[in-house]
Every structure is written in structure tokens, then in C-alpha cells.
């Protein structure tokens, strides 16, 4: 009975199906646009952050700590300013087949609390419309193509009012290598998604991902609910997964693993006043659970997407919450911000 009504209803609507000629033209037009965008699509990807670096080094040093701790006073090498730190993490997807300049796919402020007990990864949407000195209004990601990490940092400083302590630029290759060395990475996905390259799907839930999964998920910005925004949140989830996985390994006991970790290339550090190893030593109290990813949840606000004359769509800031986030970064009150805006926490969606 209901089945018959269904069949009738489907049959009644058949005539509304788009005409094949319309579709053929649409497919050709879309394919042409896609080819023009090919470079962007293929490099559209990943990156890791200072976080990867901090996480990897932190864990190594944390595991060294019991040994080092036996010595009464070990002077740590290098120097770290005695205050909260804000480091810009840029993620690039560089590949030999595509020449520079590269846009940055991930732009994230890594905030290290003054007491060194907390690390926050604050994502700045790469499609955000910003003013790029000397280049006018454009996407945040373009700043890297125009002027490298320096210009990206200037733009983020202007946007947030922060003074950054430096930049760390991480290539996709480093993410894969990290996953290869550390082994399956625990990651929880709050939404279902599929991978563009082969269509395989992930339902919401917790996974242990191999390095191919890690790279595919970190790259995917089409078959996720909110494009580049969801991807940035996924990268944060992966970074925390690295921290968890690293903590469960006996890195110190495995010289090969340790050597491999320290040999990962594709990470460029520009931290004039910070010795990364000394910082990592200070961070040994930070557990994976203390690393909090913060990202604009976006909530499907279609009015915050704007089409530029060039045809590119850009994103506008959340005028209400983003200023609070930037003040919280500046005032070191991110814990309060997180409590007030739990939907901005990307890394604890599944608890």
C-alpha cells in the first residue's frame, strides 16, 4: 500500500529529472573549471604544525626525563622566553610536480601557556578574507605564496593583534613519515567522510589510522561536511593522535625509531628566541589530553561565504566569537574561552 504510493510518487516526479543535454554541458563546464583549478586541488592538502614538532620532541624529551631527572641540576641547552608563547604553524603540501610558490593549507597559532602545562592549537581558516600588505584583500592562504612564512606571520599578527614568536613550516611528507614511524594513529571522527581519490568512507567513530589514512584524511576537503574547515579540525585531531601514540611507545628504548624521528625532514623552524629542544623539555608535563584544538565550527553560516570577483569563495570571520578568541589568546584566558565555547573545541568531539 505505502509501497504503491511510493512507486506512484517516484513515477510522477520522473519528468523533473535534469535533461541529459543540460547535464552533458554542465559536466564539460565543471571538468574545465576543475582542470584550471587542478594545481590548487592537488596541492590542496595538508600540513602539520609546530604541534607535530612540539609533540614529537616533547614526547622524546618526556621519555628521556626519568634519566635526565636523576641528575641534580642539568642545565638545559638554549633559551626559552619566560612567558606564554605563540608560534605560527604553517602546513604546506609541496610536491615535486608542482613548482612553488605554495599556499598554506593549514594556518594555526600554537599557544603554549606560561606555566607550560597547556598547548592550544588555534586554527585560523586558510580561506579567510584578509588584508595582505602589498597585495590587497585575498585569502589568508595566499599570503604564503606572496611572501612566505614572514608575510603569513605579519597577516596573522595584524588579524589577531598577537605578537608571534616565530614560525614553523611543516610539509605533508613529514606527516606521513611521522605516521610511518609512530605507527597506527588513534583518531576520532565526529562525522562521516569519504576520500576523494578512491571513495572509501569513514563513518563517525574512532579509528587507528595508518600513514596512508592519515595523509588522505588530512588532505580531504571535499567529502567532509565543511570543506577546508573540517579538514583543519581533522588535522588537529591527527596531531593529538600523534601525541597519544607517541606517548604509548618506548621511543627511548628504540634507537632506530628515535633516530628516524629526529631525521624527519620537511620541517622548517624559524624561532629566533626559542630553542625547540629546551621548549620541549619544558613541555614534558603536557599530556595529549592537555593539547586542545580550537577551530571555528562555522555552523553552516552560508552568509559568511563570499564570492570574490575572481570566482574564488572566501570566508568571513565570526564577528562575535573570533574577537573573543583573539583576546583570549592575548590575555592567556583560552581555558575560559574553551569553557564558554565548547563547540569551538575540535579535538574533544567524541570525548
Amino acid at each position, binding site marked *: 500500500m*505505502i*509501497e504503491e*504510493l*511510493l*512507486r*506512484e*510518487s*517516484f513515477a*510522477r*516526479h*520522473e519528468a*523533473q*529529472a*535534469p*535533461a*541529459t543535454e*543540460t*547535464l*552533458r554541458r*554542465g*559536466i564539460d563546464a*565543471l*571538468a574545465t573549471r*576543475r582542470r584550471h583549478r587542478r594545481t590548487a586541488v592537488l596541492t590542496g592538502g595538508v600540513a602539520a604544525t609546530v604541534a607535530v614538532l612540539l609533540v614529537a620532541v616533547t614526547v622524546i624529551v618526556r621519555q628521556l626525563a626519568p634519566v635526565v631527572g636523576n641528575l641534580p641540576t642539568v642545565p638545559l641547552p638554549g633559551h626559552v622566553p619566560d612567558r606564554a608563547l605563540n608560534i605560527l604553524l604553517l602546513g604546506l603540501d609541496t610536491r615535486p610536480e608542482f613548482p612553488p610558490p605554495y599556499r598554506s593549507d593549514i594556518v594555526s597559532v600554537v599557544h603554549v601557556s606560561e606555566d607550560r602545562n597547556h598547548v592550544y592549537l588555534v586554527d585560523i581558516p586558510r580561506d579567510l578574507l584578509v588584508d595582505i600588505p602589498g597585495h590587497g584583500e585575498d585569502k589568508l592562504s595566499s599570503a604564503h605564496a606572496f611572501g612566505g612564512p614572514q608575510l603569513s606571520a605579519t597577516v596573522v599578527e595584524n588579524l589577531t593583534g598577537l605578537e608571534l614568536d616565530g614560525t614553523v613550516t611543516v610539509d605533508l611528507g613529514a606527516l606521513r613519515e611521522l605516521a610511518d614511524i609512530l605507527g597506527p594513529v588513534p583518531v576520532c571522527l565526529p*562525522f*562521516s*567522510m*569519504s576520500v*576523494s581519490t578512491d*571513495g572509501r*568512507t569513514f563513518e563517525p567513530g574512532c579509528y587507528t589510522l595508518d600513514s596512508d589514512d592519515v595523509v588522505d584524511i588530512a588532505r580531504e576537503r*571535499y*567529502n*567532509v*561536511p*565543511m*570543506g577546508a574547515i573540517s579538514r583543519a579540525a581533522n588535522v588537529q585531531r591527527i596531531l593529538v593522535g600523534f601525541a597519544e601514540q607517541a606517548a604509548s611507545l618506548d621511543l627511548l628504548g628504540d634507537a632506530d625509531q628515535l633516530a628516524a624521528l629526529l631525521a624527519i625532514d620537511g620541517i622548517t623552524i624559524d624561532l629566533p628566541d626559542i630553542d625547540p629542544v629546551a621548549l620541549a623539555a619544558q613541555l614534558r608535563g603536557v599530556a595529549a589530553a592537555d593539547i586542545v584544538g580550537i577551530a571555528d565550527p*562555522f555552523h*553552516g*553560516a*552560508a552568509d559568511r*561565504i563570499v564570492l570574490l570577483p575572481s570566482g574564488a*569563495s572566501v570566508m568571513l570571520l565570526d564577528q562575535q566569537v573570533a574577537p573573543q578568541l583573539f583576546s583570549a589568546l592575548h590575555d592567556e584566558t583560552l581555558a575560559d574561552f574553551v569553557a564558554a565555547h565548547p563547540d569551538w573545541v575540535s579535538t574533544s568531539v567524541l570525548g
Partner: protein
Amino acid sequence: MTYDDFVDASLAGLSRYALMLAGDPHTAQDLVQETMVRARERWHRVSVTASPERYVRRMLTNLYIDWHRAPWRRRVHLRADPAEWAVPDDHAQRAADRDEIWQALTALPRQQRAAVVLRYYEDRADQEIADILGCSVGAVRGYISKALSTLRARAGAAQLSTGGFR
């Protein structure tokens, strides 16, 4: 099979399938176009599968289930204000009842809607539906049974509210 042969043979069917999934021609058009561009890009891989037609349907179905949620894909469905409807005669009432079903379909979770379309529009066997949805035959039956009871409940409620007891 070449990509062009495939388009000639399958495009009209995919278009109707996408309409039944999406419920409106604009979203259906987006779904088909996006699916076909992807199928063309990797045609060398699609063409060697046992059934390219089923493989592409699966791609389209995955796109519908997952990708549709992106905010800029969401479309506002404009509906006539019920107050503007003419008072139905018997024939119009029967047509409206059928439209109630069409409306009720929008309330189904996407996997359920896809399962219902594949069985009652495309008349596919449960195993085929399972292949396309990438789930078990048991799950297919579960989707369809849940969907039918939702649709029954909605159809019943609609009849009550339009004074169907005569």
C-alpha cells in the same frame, strides 16, 4: 567500455536516480555533474570494475550521503504556502496524498532514502542495494523497514490533518 559510451548508456538513468535521491532537480544536477567529472577523471579505474554502472551509482550515492551536508550545498527549498492551495477535489486530493509521500521522503535519513529509491524506483535486489550502499543485506532491510514505518506514520498523520476520514 569508453567514458562516452557510458555516458550515452547511463546518463539519463543516473539523472532520474539523482532526482529521486535529492528530491529537487538542482541538487540532482549538481550530484550527477560532480559524480561524472570524478568518474571521468579516473575512468581507467572505473571501467575495469565488474559493473561501471553500479560503481558510478555508488559514487553518486556516497556523494549524496556525505557531501550533501556541506553548508554551501544546502539549498533552501521554497514551498508554496499551504494557505494558497486551492480546495482539493477528489482527484487533486489523491495527487496531494502522493505529494505527501514525496514530502515525507525528505524526512528520511539519507541511507534510508537511498535504499527506498533503489528498491521501489529502480527495483533492485537487496544484494545489489547492499553493494551500492556499501553495507550488508541485513542493513538494507533494516533501512527499508524503518523508512516504510516512518512514511506510514507520516502518511497517516497527513490524512488526519487533511480530514481524510470520510
